[in-house]
């Protein structure tokens, strides 16, 4: 039964760890937390460690994070760091931070000075995905790998990297199938459910995920399709690992049929070559040149095109943009998206500013309701004028 498997997914992502992580640790293998999509999971896995995406799930308040990072930083980062400072992430054998944004960059300082985690990796990811900057990123990956080899006493060769590529490819393959099912005319699952599965794929061993996803895909086939007549939405924006947020949106009647979220479908790269002669280079290129994040400057035109293509592909009715308060990179994209929409009259958009760990309540739901009504009116007008959907 799909419902039962989805409940299992819910249990796996409820907190920052789960039984699969416990089992991995019990087998004497290390777990490494990482902050951002630009830290390739394949590299961590090849070093024999379980890559675990850092999250703030289960954090009840962010006071420890606030003390070090102030109340002026994004609440996603503050909750993650509150857990870390209070020892919640002490089970980690290492963490990898990046210069993704100033918030994550400052967390690296706190990780190093205020937690008991023994290994600290860092990646300085160039701010623009052009060919001439790629060499720097590849070198960063090499150094990270060397650091892990030294710390964990392992040797990582091309075979280990190819093995890791195979495993993560299998994950992505399942996620692509799920994303196709959610974009159907009558989707087999909600946006909140789809997001949950994407999150699960980043917090459990790849083999266990493949097993879970295969069971789910099979069970979904038998599930009746969902009604999208109140609106097919595409979501885009920053860190969002809270399915409850999407549930609240969908509770108003529309469905999120696709997304370009960092925890969601944006992390699903195309398949990597499993037989690449230089597998580290294969990994580096895939991450560096793939779907970009708002922290990449001068790459907005590509992100815009990607959003438009996705919207077309899934026959969207509207876009919801979400951003955590205080986030500058996504603040820039919000401005640019609004600017393009004004110029090109592409699609209706609703911009939501949110705080981590806060599920939309009355006021936000009313805004979503109003947005859906706007979409309905537009559709009715189009139908009346004989236009197609």
């Amino acid at each position, binding site marked *: 039964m799909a419902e039962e498997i989805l409940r299992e997914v819910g249990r796996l992502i409820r907190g920052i760890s789960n039984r699969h992580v416990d089992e991995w640790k019990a087998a004497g293998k290390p777990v490494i937390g990482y902050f951002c999509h630009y830290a390739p999971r394949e590299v961590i896995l090849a070093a024999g460690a379980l890559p675990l995406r850092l999250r703030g799930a289960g954090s009840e308040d962010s006071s420890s994070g606030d003390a070090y990072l*102030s109340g002026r930083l994004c609440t996603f980062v503050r909750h993650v760091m509150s857990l870390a400072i209070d020892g919640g992430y002490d089970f980690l054998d290492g963490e990898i931070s990046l210069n993704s944004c100033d918030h994550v960059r400052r967390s690296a300082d706190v990780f190093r000075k205020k937690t008991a985690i023994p290994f600290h990796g860092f990646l*300085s990811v160039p701010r623009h995905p052009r060919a001439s900057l790629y060499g720097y990123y590849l070198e960063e990956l090499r150094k990270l790998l060397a650091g892990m080899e030294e710390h964990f006493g392992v040797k990582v060769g091309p075979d280990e990297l190819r093995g890791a590529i195979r495993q993560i490819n299998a994950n992505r393959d399942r996620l692509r199938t799920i994303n196709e099912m959610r974009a159907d005319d009558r989707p087999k699952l909600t946006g909140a459910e789809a997001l949950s599965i994407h999150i699960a794929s980043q917090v459990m061993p790849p083999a266990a995920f493949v097993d879970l996803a295969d069971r789910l895909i099979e069970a979904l086939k038998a599930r009746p399709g969902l009604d999208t007549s109140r609106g097919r939405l595409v979501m885009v924006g920053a860190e969002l690992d809270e399915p409850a947020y999407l549930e609240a949106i969908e509770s108003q009647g529309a469905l999120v049929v696709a997304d370009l979220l960092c925890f969601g479908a944006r992390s699903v790269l195309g398949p990597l070559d499993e037989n690449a002669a230089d597998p580290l280079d294969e990994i580096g290129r895939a991450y560096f040149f793939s779907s970009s994040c708002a922290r990449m400057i001068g790459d907005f035109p590509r992100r815009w095109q990607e959003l438009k293509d996705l919207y077309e592909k899934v026959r969207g009715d509207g876009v919801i943009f979400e951003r955590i308060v205080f986030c500058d990179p996504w603040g820039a994209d919000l401005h640019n998206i609004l600017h393009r929409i004004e110029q090109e009259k592409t699609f209706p958009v609703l911009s939501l*500013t949110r705080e981590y760990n806060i599920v939309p309540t009355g006021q936000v739901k009313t805004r979503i309701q109003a947005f859906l009504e706007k979409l309905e009116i537009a559709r009715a007008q189009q139908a009346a004028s004989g236009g197609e959907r």
Partner: protein
Amino acid sequence: MNRNDIINKREWREIFEALPVVQGFFGGDPDSHGINELLRNIAVYLEELLAHVDDGKPFVWYNLGFNSELIYALEGVQPITIELLGALHSLICNSRNTLDFIDRAQAAGVPADCCSADKLAIGAIHKGLYPPPACTVGINTPCDAQVLSTQVMAELGEAPFFPIDVPYYHNEETILHVAGQLKELIPFLEENTGRKMDIDRLREACELSNRTAENIWEWLDWRKQVPLTQSSKLVAFTLLLQILFIGSQKGVDITEGLLREARERTGRGERFFEERVRAIWYQDAVWTDLQIYDWFERELGLTVPVDVFGYYANEGVIDTSTPDTMLYGLARKLVNCHPMARQFRGDIDFYVKDFMHMLEAFNADCCIFAGHIACKHAWGGIGLFKEACRRADIPLLVFEFDMFDPRVTSYEDVYFEVERFVNEIVWPRKQRG
């Protein structure tokens, strides 16, 4: 397009009208060579800008993490830093326009919680106030806020955009990485401006840059003297110098003015106030009204010999022997000397270390962390910074404000915070020895 299209815009007209008044005001003190040279050279720059518009010559836009040498090295190309109008209106205390820019940026979708320095730039671009660029250059220093302004500049500038990546680390690879990008930038600039980079001209720009830097280093040495004999607020202006005037004669003239003033005032043993307390003003200057520093001096005996905008680290002059050595030197200045870019892009240890160095070198008694609300990297380090100050037993004042928007924290509230800190904590402690 000609100069009238610029001058007739209210936001420009008010600058042109106010500049002579401000010049007259400061010119009342003929010994204020620093500020007088600054104002004179702003006027020179603005006249050049108008002449360029008349002649249809190309402009290159960039954000505040970049320096102007490479642009001056291209014959007939004029640099425009997109924060220019906001900075000028702040300088002439015309907050009506700065607030207008901020509001305009927000109306266009820039979130309220983003940095007002970016909003000044974005608002001015939205209002179509700058002559259109032949191309734009964006650099990711000093902080994420620049990611915002460069992304929007790239979008609204409607011209080819070249991003420069500055890594996190303070090491040789970082300098080489940036130098490599400057090498890529040259053909980009040449292609889009239609001007050829002449090596002799580049050398000349680097030599002017070196003279400017040497003057600043010497000037900062004068500011280490106790008591301070020049105005505290002068230090906030030096950032504009790096961004817009370095690599030109204007940079040399301004710094010579500053240096001459420091020498003369110190030589005469001038003191127009009783110095009681010296503070390192870490983080952002009160750009909404720089006169506040005069008030601090006169009312509280508080001086600010240096702040993070005015500190220009001495990491060596540019070696002008070959094109590569020049690009290396320019890259080193961008990442290791440029105020803020130096301290803000890497780990907190470097930020703390620079502060400790300034505290000692400038004989300061305390730290004033003037926390510009949208400065995420700074606030993100506040816990560890406070711990470092506590360990070193340094009195620290932390407060929130917005450097361009007095609606966030009023002038009076900023003054009140500083007054309480100086009178109730630092001065009594200093008297106790």
